[in-house]
């Protein structure tokens, strides 16, 4: 798994490449533990995320709770269909805004 982060306007974009499972999710958890100073939107760009398990969902919900508590919006974009299915079945699709891709997300959030 590879995590990268950069800022576009007021949106902090975190891209995750590869697999988010019990072995890799602690790394994302650590990454999401602090919300960068002055950010108002956190966007998880999962376009290159090929796999997610419940261990990955755990980290996403934790990050969403932290964001909510800090008055920051957390959104997700770029889910491939098999990953989107996991968000749907877990009820996360109705909990966290999911955008088809980064441009669509930035148009709404930026």
């Amino acid at each position, binding site marked *: 798994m590879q995590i990268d982060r950069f800022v576009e306007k007021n949106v902090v974009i975190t891209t995750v490449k590869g697999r988010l499972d019990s072995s890799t999710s602690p790394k994302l958890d650590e990454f999401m533990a602090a919300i960068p100073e002055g950010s108002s939107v956190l966007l998880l760009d999962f376009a290159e995320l090929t796999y997610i398990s419940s261990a990955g969902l755990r980290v996403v919900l934790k990050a969403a709770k932290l964001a*909510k508590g800090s008055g920051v919006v957390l959104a997700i974009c770029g889910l491939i269909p*098999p990953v989107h299915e996991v968000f749907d*079945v*877990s009820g996360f699709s109705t909990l966290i805004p999911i955008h088809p891709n980064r441009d669509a997300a930035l148009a709404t959030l930026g």
Partner: protein
Amino acid sequence: MIIDRIDFRLANDLAELGPLVRALDFFGEAVALPPKTAHRLTLAIDEFVNNAVDYGYPDHRQGEITVSIRHRVEHLEIVIADDGDAFDPLTAPAPDLSGSIEERRIGGLGVHLVRTLATSFAYRREDERNVVTLALALDA
């Protein structure tokens, strides 16, 4: 070429998951699984192996987990067995999927995801082993 069946045997150690996932990826590509079926396959095995390792051997004894995949015409049949303490996943409480971000509990989704994505799901205790049998649609 079709792979009709593949059987794995693992120690109750999460380090086994790396090679197992690579083998599942190989299988999925070799038989050209639809992307959702391939993802569900890895998810089902990942969740149940993780649970067996995490909860099945509280005394940290050595254990053995087996995974068998049969490739049928319309579905994959998966059998996951472990010699951990008896546990029927059908008794795992259903997660509360409604509620706000603040209300949602972290965790408790693994069994639910697999049960929901499988077209059939059964548990039995047999020969001191937990045996979970499930089917995944091939036309996902």
